[in-house]
Structures are given as C-alpha cells and as structure tokens.
C-alpha cells in the first residue's frame, strides 16, 4: 500500500463493508476482557488527548477558567480587526485551494496517463514539498521575490517598479506550493482509478479532447476533487507560518492567534480565534465523512487498464503548465539549498559551511527525530490496534470512536496546540517542558492515518484465518499476535512512515509546547527565519529535508528487500 493511498483513505473512509459476522453466537464486549480493557484504555486516551483539549479551548473562549464567563472576546472578534484577518485567511485559503486543485488535475492527468522517466520525475518533484516544513517556500520566495529578491531586484531596477511578493499574494503562492502534494495525492489516486473506457467512448462518438475532459473526465473525478479541496482548504486556513514570514502587513487569523498566545498570552482571545478555525474544519469533516459516502461508489469499479493519451491543445496546455510548475518547485528547493551554503544569498554569495555549525539547530533536529519516531510509533501501533478492534470486536460506540479519532486529523494544529497548552501546563498534569508532551500531541493527531490503513487492511483479510487459528485451540490473544500482527505489518509500516514524515515537518501545534531543551527542528527554523537569518534557516531546513528523504529511501530499500509493498 503506498503512502498516497493511505493518505487517500484517511481523508474519507470509503464505503464500508459491514464486517463479516461470525455465524453462531454473537460475541459480547467483555467476552475477551483483554481486548475490552484495551478498547477502554484507547477510548480514554482519545478522549484525553483529542477531545478534552478542544473542549478546553471552547470553554476558555467564554472566559471560563480565566476571569469568568464572558462574551466579550466574541464581541471583540466581531468588532472588526479579527474579522478582517478571518476574511483574509478565508479568501487566501480559497484561492490557494482552487489553484492547488487545478494544478493537481493537470499534473495528475499527465502522470497517470504516461509512463517513463519524465512522468516519474514530475511526480517526484510534485511530491517534494511534502518533506519540507510548509513555510520553507516563504523563505525561497523572499530570496527570489522579496523587495530586494534576485528576480524582483532585477525587475525593479530595470523597470523602476516597486514590486514585491510580501503580503496577501505571497501567502497564497507559498500555500499553493506547500500544500500542493496533499491535494495532488488524493486527485492522482482518483485519476488512476478512472475508467478510461468512458473517455474512449466519448472520443469515438466524435467529441473533442476538451469536451471529453470537461464532460467526462472532470465530472468523474469530482468526489476526489472535492475531498482534496476540503483537506487543502482546512490546512491553508490554519496556516500561520507563511503569513508570519511573507505576510507583510496583511493580517491572517491563524498568525494573529499565534501572536496572541506568544506575544500577549491572551489565551481567551486565542481560544475564540481557534473556535473559528475549528468550525469550518468540523463542518467539512462531517460533510466528507457522511455527505460524500454515497457518491464514492460511482467512480470506482473496474477501470480500463490501458492508459489514454491526451491529444491536441489540452495536451499542450497541460504539459506546459506542469513543466512550469514543477520547474518552480525545483527552483524554489534549489534556492533553499543554495541559501544554506552561502553567507547571504543575493547579497554576499561567498561559499560557507558556517550555517551548518549551529549547535542549537543540531540539537533541535535530534529532538525532532526522537519525537517524530516515537510519535509515529505510537500513532502506528495504536492505529493498528484500533483498526483491529473496530473491525473485529463488538465495541459499543464504534462509530463515535472512529469519528473522533479521525477528527484528530482534521483539527487545525493551532487549536490543538492551544488546547494542550491550557490543559497540560497546569494542575494536575504539569507536562509542559517534556518531550513526551510533544510526542503525545503529534501522535494523537496522526492516529487516524494508521487506523484507517488498518481498517481497510482488516477488511481485505478474510476472517477464516483467525477462525482456523481459533479452531486449532489457540486463544484470541495469541491469534492476534501470531496471525493479525504479521499480516498487518505492511500497513503498520506505511502508517508509521507517513506519520514520521509529516510530524518531522509539523509546526502548528507544537510551537506552543516547546521549551528550553525540547525545541524541535521545524519550530527552530521558524524562530530563525523570523529574525531574518535566512542562511541559518535554510541550513536547518536542508538537514531536516535530508533526514526525511533518507528515511523514505530506507523505506524503499526495506520494501525491495522484504517484498513488502509499503
């Protein structure tokens, strides 16, 4: 199972086949106390680490736990400034989502229809932003298009203009680049499962390529597109790194929330802002969980094995757009790498390795690796356990259990981080300042990935093997370890890798939780970038990206060596 598929599956659980029920007597919850107790513990953990922090945010937004019940903060929110920021965030998120969708369509149309090194390298480049912290593109955009950027400096000198990318449009461009892979993976998956026979039929009936695309191909992909749009929109809405670095004087809600906490410790106002980030996410999550399920079946089914090549003007347009786009990704990545190896790119281009000799940066990266490893491990193992329990065991409140776990994925990191800060910094926990709080925070936001992978894997596995084991007199727990665990290993590893990659570059929630000695690579990059030290920020980014890429390479090796499709 590829990580792309995993990602697809986590986004909206596809149609669910009812779990095959054993014939004979119906099992009850406490028939196997070990599994029952495990379920209760897991449910409690989900409640504590996903639900409670969000509840605390909601409560605090009314002043409860602070100075007492009040609606003042909501009133303040609607009084103008924050509403403008909310508006800016929403419009920017809508724009970047639309652009991501269009580009995802064009790139995936090319990649899914052609083989060969060109298609492969386009795909690789398109996925590249996944391994970098989402705000890294802001850095290279400033290098190129800042007020004195390599490109803008030249343009402005030549034409006497005052152009720069700071502000609203800079944020949109950076978001498009940063969140592209997420939308792309979903849409590519849909494109790959398209039934090309319908396209061929349309062409045979004399329709042009353009008409075929708009009347057949796009309508068939609409569910995938919608899913992708929802995910990208929620991520872009919650983005605060890009606005901080390249937002200029335009205000965005997520970055205002960040500044409210970091600069004023105004938790109440920040909580109100978080509620407004949370509401659209929750709404979209409900829509995609329940609203889109019925439509999904219409596009899957048997797909024509052969690939249908594009023709005519659409082909030319699509190829051009894609080439420009992946070339920009490559260029921007190159800027980060170059920026790491020179004193100050564009100003003093002398080669240097000084940027890498930063002890604080190194320890931050080591922390990142440790934290992400354990977070991914926990997310993978708990996800697998939950998937198994949900599919095979009679657990009361299954739907709610699954829904809430999945919701952890859809929650804007900012809201989650503030919830953790309020909940765990005081009595009775006092957990802030420990690496474990960071591990738990990251892990529980990713459990849904492993769980969804495990659920679909469990559905593929016939129950007869477990029954055989049980008929041979092996107890349920031994059966779990001897039959289920080995069969689940591939999905566990896939979930682990996805979680590791994404937690390595995650910032939005943990930025509120780092403390002296537990700083992470991604947050350190943001700190350094904010003080304008682009070279240092680039160097830490390069190391971080390098580690993530290395891990992916390692995974490929494991995949080849053990024949496990990951």
């Amino acid at each position, binding site marked *: 199972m590829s990580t792309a598929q995993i990602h697809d599956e986590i986004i909206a659980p596809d149609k669910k086949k009812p779990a095959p029920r054993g014939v004979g007597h119906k099992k009850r919850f406490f028939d196997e106390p070990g599994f029952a107790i495990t379920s209760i513990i897991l449910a409690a953990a989900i409640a504590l680490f996903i639900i409670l922090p969000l509840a605390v945010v909601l409560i605090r937004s009314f002043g409860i736990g602070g100075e007492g019940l009040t609606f003042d903060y909501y009133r303040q929110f609607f009084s103008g*400034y924050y509403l403008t920021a909310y508006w800016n965030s929403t419009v920017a998120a809508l724009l970047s989502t639309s652009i991501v969708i269009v580009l995802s369509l064009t790139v995936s149309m090319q990649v899914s229809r052609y083989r060969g090194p060109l298609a492969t390298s386009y795909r690789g480049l398109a996925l590249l932003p996944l391994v970098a912290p989402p705000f890294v593109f802001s850095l290279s955009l400033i290098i190129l298009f800042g*007020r004195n950027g390599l490109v803008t400096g030249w343009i402005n000198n030549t034409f006497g203009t005052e152009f720069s990318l700071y502000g609203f449009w800079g944020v949109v461009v950076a978001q498009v680049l940063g969140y592209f892979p997420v939308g792309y993976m979903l849409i590519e998956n849909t494109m790959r499962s398209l039934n090309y026979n319908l396209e061929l039929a349309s062409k045979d009936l004399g329709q042009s390529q353009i008409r075929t695309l708009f009347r057949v191909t796009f309508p068939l992909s609409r569910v995938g597109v919608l899913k992708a749009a929802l995910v990208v929109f929620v991520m872009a809405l919650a983005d605060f790194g890009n606005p901080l670095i390249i937002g200029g004087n335009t205000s965005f809600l997520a970055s205002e929330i960040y500044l409210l906490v970091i600069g004023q*410790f105004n938790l109440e106002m920040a909580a109100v802002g978080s509620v407004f980030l949370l509401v659209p996410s929750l709404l979209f999550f409900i829509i995609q969980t329940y609203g889109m399920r019925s439509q999904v079946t219409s596009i899957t089914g048997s797909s024509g094995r052969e690939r249908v090549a594009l023709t005519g003007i659409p082909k030319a347009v699509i190829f051009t757009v894609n080439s420009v786009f992946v070339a920009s990704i490559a260029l921007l990545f190159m800027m980060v790498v170059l920026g790491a190896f020179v004193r100050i790119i564009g*100003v003093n281009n002398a080669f240097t390795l000084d940027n890498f000799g*930063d002890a*604080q940066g190194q320890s931050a990266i080591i922390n990142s690796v440790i934290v992400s490893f354990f977070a991914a491990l926990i997310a993978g193992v708990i996800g697998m356990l939950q998937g198994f329990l949900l599919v095979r065991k009679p657990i009361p409140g299954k739907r709610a259990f699954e829904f809430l776990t999945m919701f952890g994925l859809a929650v804007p990191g900012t809201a989650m981080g503030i919830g953790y800060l309020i909940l765990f910094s005081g009595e009775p926990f006092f957990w802030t300042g420990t690496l474990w709080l960071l591990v738990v925070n990251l892990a529980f936001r990713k459990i849904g990935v492993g769980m969804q992978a495990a659920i679909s894997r469990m559905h593929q596995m016939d129950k007869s093997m477990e029954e055989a084991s049980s008929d041979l007199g092996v107890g349920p727990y031994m059966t779990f370890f001897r039959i289920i665990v*080995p069969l689940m290993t591939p999905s566990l590893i896939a979930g682990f890798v996805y979680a590791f990659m994404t937690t390595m570059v995650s910032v939005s929630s943990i930025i509120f939780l780092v403390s*002296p000695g537990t700083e992470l690579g991604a947050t350190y990059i943001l700190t350094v970038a904010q003080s304008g030290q682009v070279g*240092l920020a680039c160097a830490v980014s390069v190391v971080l990206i390098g580690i993530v890429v290395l891990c992916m390479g390692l995974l490929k090796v494991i995949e080849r060596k*053990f024949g496990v499709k990951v």
Partner: protein
Amino acid sequence: MSKRTTLIGLCSAAALLLVGCAESGTSQQSQGGDTVTLYTTNNVEEMRDLASRAEEATGLNIDYLQLSTEEGWSRIMGEAPNFQADGQWGQFESNAIRAVEEGFLEPYDSPAWEDIPDQFRDPDGYWYGWSYWFNLITYNEDLLEAKGLDIPTSWADLTDEQYRGEIVLPDPGTSGTAFLFVATIMQIMGEEEAWDYFEAFHENVGQYESNGSAPAQLVGNGEYAIGITWDQAVFDRIDQGYPMEAVIPSEGVGYSLDVVWMFKDAANREGMEQLIDYIGSEEGMQNSANQRSMVTDPDVEGLSQVDDIEDYLLDYDAQWAAENQEEIMEQWRTTFGGDS
C-alpha cells in the same frame, strides 16, 4: 514469514537504537555537569557563542529557548508559578522590575558581582545587569542611494513622507527593542506629542517584525531602506560586510540594561547560581564584551564603535517604563495593531 520476522526484528532494532540515542543524549548532558535551562532574548548567533563559552567555563550544560522580549514575558506570565526554565539570560530591565513586583524571581547574593556598579544590579540580588544596549537607526546605503532618499539624522526625520513604506520596525507588542524606541520617544517628546509622532511614523512603516534584530537583517539584505533596531545587531552586520550604516539620532537614544535572573523555585538552583557568578566574573564579562557594545563591568571594554556614546544616551527611566509598559502597549495595539 521469516522475511516478516526479520523485518519486525529490524524495526525493533531501529527503535532500540533510537532509544539508545535519546538516552545517551541525556546522559551526555549529565556527564558534562548538570543542565541549566534558560529563556533568552539574546539573538540566535550571539547566544550560540555566549552559551558555549559559559558551558566551557562552568562545566554546565545550557539549554535555552530564544524568545523575543515580550514573547518571553508573556510566556513567564503564562507559566507562573511553574516556570519551565531555571533562569533568564538577557531580558529587558523594566521586565526585571515587573518580575520582581510579581514575585517571580529568586534573590541570590552573588559574590562575583561586587565590582559591578550598584546602578546595574538589583539591591536585593533579584537581577543583575550584564550589558546594556541602545536603539539606533540603520539604513542600507545602496538602497537609499538608488531610491534617492536622504540619510535620516534624527527620530523626527523618520516621519518624512519620502520614507513611506521604507521603514521596518520591530513590533512593540513582541519586541523590547521596539518598546524601548516607543518609550524613548515618549520620554523625549512627552506623551501626547509622541502619539502624534507615532501616527505619522506608522504611515511610513512597511513592515513590523516580531524580533528586534530582524530589521537589521532586512536592511542588510536590502529588503527595506531603513530600520530601527539595536546597536550590536547593526555593528555586527557592518563588520560582516553588509552595505549598511548606523545613525545615532540627534535627539539621543534610550538604552536598557540586559539582565540575568533566577526564577523562583528553580529546579537547578546551584547551577543557576553558578551561571550568575560566571556572568558577573571577569571572564564572563570579557566573553559578553565579545558580543556587546558595552558591558556593565567598567574595566571591560565592549565592542562599542561610537565615540562618546555617553553623550547620546538619554537618561532613560526604566522604572517609569516598567510602570507604564502595559498601558503603552495596550494603546499601541488598539491604535496600530488594529484590535479595538
């Protein structure tokens, strides 16, 4: 099956290795002496040097988190009374005064600071000033010339229309550097006139930055023509060859002590005391003087590149600033930050 078993074995081996790494990481720290955790406002590059020299001299291991002045303050306010750090190395003097009033600090009577003049430390040993710094204006020579702008020579010049959109200022909501600027203007002009000034000045600001050193970097990179920042942020970059210059405004500049303190109930009290002793020692002062224009030990020469700087330093009132800080920042936020 055997492949899978090997695979699982491999994964657990990797896990063990990583646990090992994590543990050896911590044990390394304990080998080198105990760990002191700090908040600092010192910028990333100077703190790297200061911390590693302090580690060498004391045998302590120093973990720190860099936060700008007000970020650090809001963090302390949020954490009180369970501070996540043992101490603070580098903070605003007026915040030290506020911290004493709030009861956040642990006094320590350090013998190493006896030679430092009384005015630079708290009489009860709650905090010690190790260096002081001042605001200044910096400009990018190339950019100023290319745009045909005059070199500003005073604070008053900065409201001139020719600089529209060309000035970068740290955000007084997060940065002590910016707050010092705001407080200085108020002490020069008087409150009412100062707000008129800020209104005109705000029109010229192209960007607010959260960090006090960032304007120096942005001006050095040629992103903005003029920046308001602090002394060593500019002089370091001039030495590194950036095309920028410093201007000491003719009205004079405010200055602030940079202080070190220990939090109440610090987990590593001995370590923190050791660090405070070191910072006040001659060696510590020498090392600080490698990074700062002026340190508080009169016998140790800092990097100051300005002759007769004393003539420009205004008699800045930190006590007044501490008392009025909250109110001034609130008004700044409602006037320019947008939330009303």
